[in-house]
């Protein structure tokens, strides 16, 4: 049985325009018998994944698999949903079943690599990713997984470099923008991060994670947290500068200036410790209402 081609083409178009809610409405209008077409199950699972409605993704994927039999896309979506629910071993089972059907699918290889990163198996993730990159080096999932792998390994510079490559290739891709925002946060570039997350939300307003990240970076643009920008940017170097300055002043027997710098640094450190949760609490009701 095949679904009406024009209706399905419309759904695909809506998903490409990042309108998953409308795609789901369109899918709901399909006549009963057509709704059990494998392609319809896949499209529904994709739309629900875009909305992060993981319980429903798992349900649709399972229904589809029961109805149409083994299907790589549905197994992959089931794996993604199970991973999001924290069921990592069943997620691995689903992804391996999918890869048994489509061992050369770069998206599936990347999903499995991401899962391995999530549970700390970075060596295996790296090998899976190398295979995916051989097959489709410019696939968005390959870029995203390379960034996640570098980030999980603490290789922030490499993660930033790949993020730039990703954004260069797909300047408006919400995942690229969100990952760029995440890396910018790690590098202490709050304004940059806030802009990236804002653009990610503009391109994908239904994703609650992007909205949360955009809100969180907005918190850090609050005037009370502006003095902390150098600390976020310089990190441990700022500490070394402060401690070094106090040491030099002490060695030069400039005890009063050393005491002033030490006290200022103490207050600054305490402020950096207590101010972010304080500001978060302060603006929570106001900015979210």
């Amino acid at each position, binding site marked *: 049985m095949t679904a009406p081609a024009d209706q399905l083409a419309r759904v695909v178009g809506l998903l490409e325009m990042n309108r998953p809610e409308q795609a789901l409405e369109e899918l709901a209008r399909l006549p009963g018998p057509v709704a059990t077409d494998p392609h319809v199950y896949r499209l529904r699972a994709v739309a629900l994944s875009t909305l992060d409605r993981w319980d429903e993704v798992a349900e649709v994927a399972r229904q589809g698999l029961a109805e149409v039999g083994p299907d790589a896309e549905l197994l992959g979506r089931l794996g993604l949903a199970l991973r999001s629910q*924290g069921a990592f*071993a069943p997620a691995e089972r689903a992804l391996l079943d999918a890869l048994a059907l489509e061992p050369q699918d770069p998206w599936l290889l990347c999903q499995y690599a991401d899962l391995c990163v*999530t549970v*700390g198996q970075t060596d*295996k993730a790296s*090998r899976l990713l190398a295979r995916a990159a051989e097959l489709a080096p410019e696939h968005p999932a390959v870029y995203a997984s390379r960034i*996640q792998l570098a980030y999980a390994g603490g290789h922030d510079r490499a993660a930033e470099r790949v993020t730039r490559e990703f954004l260069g290739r797909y300047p408006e891709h919400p995942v690229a923008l969100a990952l760029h925002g995440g890396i910018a946060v790690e590098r202490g570039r709050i304004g940059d991060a806030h802009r990236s997350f804002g653009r990610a939300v503009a391109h994908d307003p239904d994703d609650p994670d992007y909205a949360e990240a955009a809100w969180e970076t907005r918190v850090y643009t609050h005037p009370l947290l502006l003095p902390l920008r150098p600390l976020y940017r310089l990190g441990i170097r700022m500490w070394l500068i402060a*401690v070094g300055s106090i*040491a030099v002043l002490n060695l030069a027997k400039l005890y009063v200036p050393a005491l002033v710098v030490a006290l200022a640094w103490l207050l600054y*450190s305490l402020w950096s410790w207590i101010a972010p949760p304080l500001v978060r609490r302060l603006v929570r009701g106001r900015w979210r209402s």
Partner: protein
Amino acid sequence: MADDLFTPTITPAAYAEGRPPWRPGSLVYPAVFGGALAATVLALVNARRLRLPVGAVLAIVGTGLAALVARLAITVVLLDGHTSGPARLVGALSGVLVWSVANLTQKGRFRTYEMRGGQAASLVLPGIAAALGLGIVEAVLIVLAAAVR
């Protein structure tokens, strides 16, 4: 399937979460204010929460011991056992040294913990308690070492 990449390797025990860890970057605060002992103890507790491998735990223990011994030696030998002024600076530096190793070994594990949806535990109360309590212990050790000398 013969490909070893497609052999299952994830078991529920590999990711079962216990008590939530602290953000490794935040350990710098009790490290600076409390010194090497506070930094080492908190880093070891966090290492356990993050299930760090033995090598990483030993690196923290080794750095912690070295930093504590260096701090005691410098304070007793070069600064005549005084615990104020430059001695506080030495204490802060020894804490930062331990923290840098802890941060290096724990950052990746903590990030994967966050990727699993985990939230960092608050370090405010344990941090203050460790900085004060273990900072005092460190000061007592200096006094004892100075007395022995």
